[in-house]
């Protein structure tokens, strides 16, 4: 019973219905229900991960129900190592977000209840989007999940929240509609070649001319490049991250943007292997630009939230580069990177959010000497920062290293330029760390309170995961490696140099 993806998707929805039925005044109860629901979902996902057969590259936990037979659409779900890792990340992050942002919903336009309903509905979609094996189902969830995020940013954010929400929505819808055109193309072609279907496996067998493949690939890729934000389609992200609550930002950057990079592997590479090869040089250049550009802009930021957003653009550049390096190490590194980035960004946003809400300002210059006043908070931020700059011993180091090694074997120049991103990362993290945490305590910071018990409980697992996976990433890599190798083999690539990927 625990091994049903459909059930896993249903759990948060059930939780949201419970929350919806609560009276408006019972705010704490709504929060508790949301927390318990997300904890149960996280537990169920971990149980599922335990039962996952690591060496089996086929889809597991497959379920399929007819949905719209007229168009050959099924409600079909199933996961491989890649999807499992991302679902695990999403469902583990969800209770942390709920617990960390316990009071986030209070400044919103609507009641606290609505906030948690949106979060829970979003969680269902986060699981569904990674689990879907029917392209139509994927698209439906891909688009539908914009709506709760839109209301989360626009309803509970700060500053120019409605403008940011609209910008986010319009960008995403535009990309989504391009993808819809490509999906229609696939659907029509499948009809000509043995019956209308949206089954991912069947669609990957389609015969198509290289021109068609290129166009359809672009439809998908642009949608994903907007999501994952790749330069020059990234401009919505800093605004959205700036306006959203820290919890929403974690879900947005940590999980939703991963749908983009996940989609590149699952849909772009699988469905259009030849077009992927054609566009690889261009995409690698864009990735390298993202890495360097994101890093430079992060260095220039005065606002903490925008800084974290730009670091993410740089990191997404690494992930995209790893994916399109077309080596199994690059693939594994990129997948691991997605997981790690989820947690290191979560740590940065959550601790950053606490700092901002205590100080009442998100300008870095307003902080100073926090290490003396609020040691736990300061150390948490420090560790989160170290993870973001990929310090050895932190989980992101492993993934960044794998990506760079995987890229270097095939595209040395790109890898070398990208390495500068690491140097820049040290700058963009160490500057705010120095300004905010060290030095004399500046005026206005003397009376800040340190993390309370709830916040400590929320941040502890994140930091634990970051450090644990830094030293011992192999449980995850054992799940990821077979899936990555499978993708690369399907593309018809072999790794250029002998590798020794398992550490």
């Amino acid at each position: 019973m625990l091994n049903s993806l459909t059930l896993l998707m249903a759990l948060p929805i059930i939780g949201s219905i419970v929350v919806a039925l609560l009276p408006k005044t019972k705010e704490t109860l709504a929060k508790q229900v949301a927390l318990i629901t997300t904890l149960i979902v996280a537990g169920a996902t971990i149980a599922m991960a335990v039962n996952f057969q690591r060496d089996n590259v086929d889809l597991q936990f497959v379920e399929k129900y007819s949905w719209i037979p007229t168009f050959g659409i099924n409600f079909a779900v199933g996961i491989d190592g890649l999807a499992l890792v991302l679902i695990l990340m999403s469902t583990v992050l969800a209770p942390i977000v709920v617990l960390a942002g316990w009071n986030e919903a209070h400044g919103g336009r609507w009641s606290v209840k609505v906030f948690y309903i949106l979060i829970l509905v979003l969680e269902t979609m986060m699981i569904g989007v990674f689990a879907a094996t029917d392209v139509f189902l994927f698209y439906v969830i891909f688009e539908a999940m914009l709506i709760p995020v839109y209301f989360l940013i626009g309803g509970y954010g700060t500053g120019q929240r409605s403008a940011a929400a609209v910008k986010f929505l319009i960008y995403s819808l535009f990309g989504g509609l391009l993808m819809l055109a490509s999906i229609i193309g696939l659907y029509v072609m499948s009809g000509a070649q043995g019956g209308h279907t949206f089954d991912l496996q069947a669609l990957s067998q389609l015969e198509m001319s290289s021109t068609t493949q290129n166009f359809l690939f672009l439809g998908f890729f642009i949608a994903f490049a907007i999501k994952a934000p790749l330069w020059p389609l990234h401009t919505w992200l800093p605004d959205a991250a700036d306006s959203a609550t820290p919890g929403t930002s974690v879900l947005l950057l940590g999980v939703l943007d991963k749908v983009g990079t996940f989609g590149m592997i699952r849909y772009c590479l699988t469905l259009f292997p030849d077009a992927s090869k054609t566009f690889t040089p261009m995409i690698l250049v864009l990735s390298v630009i993202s890495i360097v550009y994101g890093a430079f802009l992060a260095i220039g930021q005065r606002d903490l939230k925008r800084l974290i957003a730009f670091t993410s653009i740089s990191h997404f550049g690494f992930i995209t580069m790893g994916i399109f390096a077309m080596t199994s190490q690059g693939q594994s590194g990129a997948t691991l990177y997605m997981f790690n980035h989820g947690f290191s960004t979560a740590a940065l946003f959550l601790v950053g959010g606490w700092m901002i809400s205590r100080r009442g300002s998100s300008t870095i210059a307003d902080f100073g000497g926090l290490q003396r006043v609020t040691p736990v908070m300061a150390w948490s931020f420090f560790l989160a920062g170290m993870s973001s700059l990929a310090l050895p011993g932190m989980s992101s180091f492993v993934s960044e290293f794998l990506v760079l090694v995987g890229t270097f074997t095939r595209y040395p120049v790109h890898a070398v330029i990208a390495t500068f991103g690491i140097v820049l990362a040290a700058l963009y993290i160490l500057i705010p760390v120095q300004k905010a945490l060290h030095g004399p305590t500046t005026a206005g910071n003397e009376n800040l309170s340190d993390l309370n018990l709830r916040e400590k409980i929320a941040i502890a697992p994140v930091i634990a995961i970051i450090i644990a996976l830094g030293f011992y990433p192999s449980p995850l890599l054992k799940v990821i490696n077979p899936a990555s190798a499978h993708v690369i083999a399907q593309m018809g690539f072999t790794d250029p140099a002998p590798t020794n990927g398992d550490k």
Partner: protein
Amino acid sequence: MEFTTPVLNYTLLSPILILLGAALITVLVEAFVSKALRPITQLSITLGALVLALVQVWRIRNEQSMTAAMGSVIIDGPAVLMQASILIISIISVFLIADTEHFTALAASLPGSDEERQAVQSGNQVTEVYPLTLFAVSGMLLFPISSDLITLFVALEMLSLPLYLMAGLSRRRRLASQESALKYFLLGAFSSAFFLFGAAFLYGYSASVTFAGIRDAVVGSGGNDVFLLIGISFLSVGLLFKVGAVPFHAWSPDVYQGSPTPVTAFMAAATKVAAFGAMLRIYYTSFANAQWSWTPMLTVIAIVTMVFGSLVAIAQRDVKRMLAYSSIAHAGFLLTGVIALNKAGLEASIFYLFAYGIATVGGFAIVTLVRDAAGEVTDLNRWKGLGKRSPWVATAFAGFLLSFAGIPLTSGFIGKFSIFSAAYESGAKSVVIAGVLSSAIAAFFYIRVIVLMFFTDPVEDGTSVEIPSALTSLSVIFAMIVTIALGVFPAPVLNLISDLATFIR
């Protein structure tokens, strides 16, 4: 000269006959029933007739006949589906029309005259809107089943003339309403003339006014192709005017804005179904083999219509005008179904028409609820903060807008997906790309309204949301349920459509 007695199949024609009979009765009711009982009597008869007609349509759903009225009408699957859609849309529109608050007490009186004041003071509300509605609906039922150009023209006038009058019945801003009625009438009369001109050329081409005769001539390609081209072009002008495609759209924003909102809802939703029904039939049967002479023209019109509608809608500040331009854009999307010229295109168009029609009535039903002391408030700036004032009304409106925008899990998405895939399948990729891009543009202004309602603080200017009457609520709730149900679980309806949707020739 020998005279053949016409043979009519009354069962197959019964939906139309029921409505015409009821229309005549409601005229008598207007004359003889006391004014206290009049509204409720009219409403009961109208709804009763519409429901009865719907039941009748359902009972003949598997019938096929070319001879129901001496070869003037065709009863087949698509006909039944179109008629059923029109009737369902009409029923929920009549729920809105039942609110007499929207209609002038005495349409014959001059705006601002003593006569008008007297009528208002004595509470003497005339109810001519009911017979007009019934006449219009019977014309709409006839339009998509006509199988010769004469019947088609009669049906066109039968549905148009009552609508011209209904557009002028508004209680508030009567001058604007009458202006819109006159505009609608004049432009409609022009387009009818074009239609007749085209019909004459088609007769010249094929020596026949029946669809089957024209089809035979096209297949045999015996006639003068210039006549055929002129005929198709001018006939199309008449039909494109009715669906509000660019460049024949100019009437729609003014008429949508000036008409009483329940009439706008009815007109926007039901007329589209009827007009596209007729258009699909004539293009899919008579002109199918002359595909190459009209697809390029229609492709250009479709692309221009969707792009223009979406772009101009962005600049609108009035909710009814915005919905008018959005309906122009949707006319463009629907034209892709005509261009597709395959069974998938026909099925998709029928689904789209039904889904769009229902959501349109729902959307306008919401518009009737937002009022101040002087009547409806259609200025979008005054819709600010509606989500705070009345969350459910705003949520429902947002739902309809999302369906118009084609967001997944709403009926609009399934409609858009099916119609674009049908067009892609037929090779009309340019239309699909234009459609997708203009959907992106269109999404922008739908979302802007959602932002206004939910993310902007309300202004205190007397705008309030009326507590909906039972019938209005019913219509909104029904429209909402259909919009969501067709988005989440469209399989039963799609199956029904795919079983029935084949034109007989």
